[in-house]
């Protein structure tokens, strides 16, 4: 078995931030005595990512996702704990390490603003010492997969957000990184562009076998790309496992959609569970998971049911519930 592409052991990052109260008195006091507060952003995080694996790294704003990614990319130094990426310690920022990873930040721009996209690509070619033939072939591939053809000669300032993001992703992959850290790569993009980036990431992963650690607030990204998800909240891991297991494990309810037909369209179904929606004869019920078989039987026995489906709640609902209720202890 090959060693993990990414391995974290007790990774911790504590920021020290200056604090002072409001008002003149506090301002003067801070001149002689500067107070700081420790803000733990990541607390003892452990996980591994295998080569070729795509993992969704999820959490609300401020959960510690970006801080973790930045530590893995060598931008931030951990306060304690260990991180290894491809066998390297990221914080040491060795050239061989930097040549094999990439970090895409959806809210940041590394393309030079005023020159054509292709010129920024050429700069990375020089920086990573890419051979001409290999570089040409890579650009051709990326151009085909991301439909970059018309964008390459344009100055970046003239591109739309989605176009720019496609070029950012392509730029980050020119040097064939073995590990991709994607921090909200689809943020702010329209649905079509999100789908295009998603398809591309999956295809790139399939072709190159690069490991991908992806953060996103769009569950569609996660559902399309990540068989495995890691949930982080307040800097701690809440869940690490298969995406499907997340729903099974944390959802205590199932959703029943019942079509009662015209004859019984107005029947009151509240005694079976929580009615969450009603559209004519079509009623959506939320029922405790354990009671689902019994409720299904009763509905079929007591009502002229035309159609009935039993669904798991969406992953988005599950994650929202997990973060909202904070009812889980870390594994």
């Amino acid at each position: 078995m090959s060693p993990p592409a990414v391995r974290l052991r007790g990774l911790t990052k504590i920021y020290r931030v200056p604090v002072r109260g409001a008002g003149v008195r506090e301002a003067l006091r801070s001149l002689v005595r500067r107070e700081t507060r420790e803000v733990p952003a990541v607390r003892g995080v452990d996980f591994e990512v295998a080569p070729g694996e795509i993992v969704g790294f999820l959490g609300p704003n401020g959960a510690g996702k970006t801080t973790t990614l930045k530590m893995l990319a060598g931008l931030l130094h951990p306060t304690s704990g260990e991180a290894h990426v491809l066998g390297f310690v990221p914080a040491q920022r060795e050239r061989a390490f930097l040549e094999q990873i990439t970090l895409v930040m959806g809210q940041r721009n590394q393309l030079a603003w005023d020159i054509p996209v292709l010129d920024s690509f050429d700069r990375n070619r020089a920086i990573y010492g890419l051979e001409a033939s290999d570089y040409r072939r890579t650009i051709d591939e990326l151009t085909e997969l991301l439909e970059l053809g018309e964008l390459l000669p344009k100055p970046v300032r003239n591109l739309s957000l989605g176009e720019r993001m496609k070029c950012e992703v392509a730029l980050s992959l020119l040097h064939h990184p073995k590990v991709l850290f994607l921090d909200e790569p689809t943020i702010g993009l329209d649905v079509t562009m999100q789908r295009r980036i998603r398809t591309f990431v999956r295809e790139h992963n399939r072709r190159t076998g690069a490991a991908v650690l992806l953060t996103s607030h769009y569950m569609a990204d996660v559902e399309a790309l990540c068989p495995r998800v890691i949930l982080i909240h307040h800097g701690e891991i809440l869940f690490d496992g298969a995406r499907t297991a997340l729903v099974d494990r944390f959802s205590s309810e199932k959703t029943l959609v019942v079509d009662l037909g015209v004859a019984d369209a107005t029947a009151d179904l509240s005694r079976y569970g929580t009615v969450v929606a009603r559209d004519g004869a079509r009623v959506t019920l939320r029922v405790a998971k354990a009671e689902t078989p019994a409720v299904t039987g009763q509905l079929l026995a007591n009502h002229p049911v035309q159609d009935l489906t039993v669904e798991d709640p969406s992953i988005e609902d599950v994650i929202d519930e997990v973060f909202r209720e904070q009812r889980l202890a870390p594994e």
Partner: protein
Amino acid sequence: MTRLARLYGGLFRIAFLEQIQYRASNVIWMIGMVLEPIVFLVVWTSVAESRGDVAGLGPRDFAAYYIVVLVVNHLTFSWIMHVFQYRIQQGSLSFELLRPVHPIHNDLCANFAYKIQMLVILTPAIVLMIIGFDPRFDLQLGSLLAFVPALILGFAVRFLFEWTLALAAFWTTRTMAMNQIYFAVMTFLSGRIAPLAVFPDLLRDAAAVLPFYYMVAFPVEVFLGQLAPAEMLRGFGFQVFWVGVAAATIASAWRFSARRFTAVGA
């Protein structure tokens, strides 16, 4: 071709293209750089004309001095201290830290690209100043040959010294005030306001050991043949010393400074 040569070739090419995009603002910057020595030249020429020679320098000597100052100042200046804070605050340094080459290489290429392009402004400016101010040049082959290493080392001292000071942006987000002090001292002691010959002895002695003189005035005096061989050798020695100090500081402080990036968090 070695990796480094390919790196510089590629970075320079893109930096050149990028600077072309900024041609209008670059020209305005350059006009400012041309005007500065002209202003001082006019002032000192007026003084020399009304009171006679100043420290042995007549109006035509001042003209020669400031024309060469214009060239040397242009070829040795860098803007890194102006932009470093911005890089940290805006987060663009993140991407530079992700690359497998030190950001100083790209800065060097951008610097060269700008300077080469601005020869378009510098060359006619020099011609006009020569026509307008009738400088007295007493050029000697030995001085001209010595000027080349003096200029290269002058650039190295200034670029590396300012790159070192720019690292302060990792510790404070208010580097503009510190930069202002540096530029005031540098402008004065580098001989841009006045040739060091007109300074009081004490200031001249201080300037002779500080790095600023070696950034501009020393290469200028070498070019103009104003230095005895021993003074020239001593000057080269100081240039090498300050290049060593600045390079060693960057090499040791860079890794340490980059750790500070943590606190800034961009």
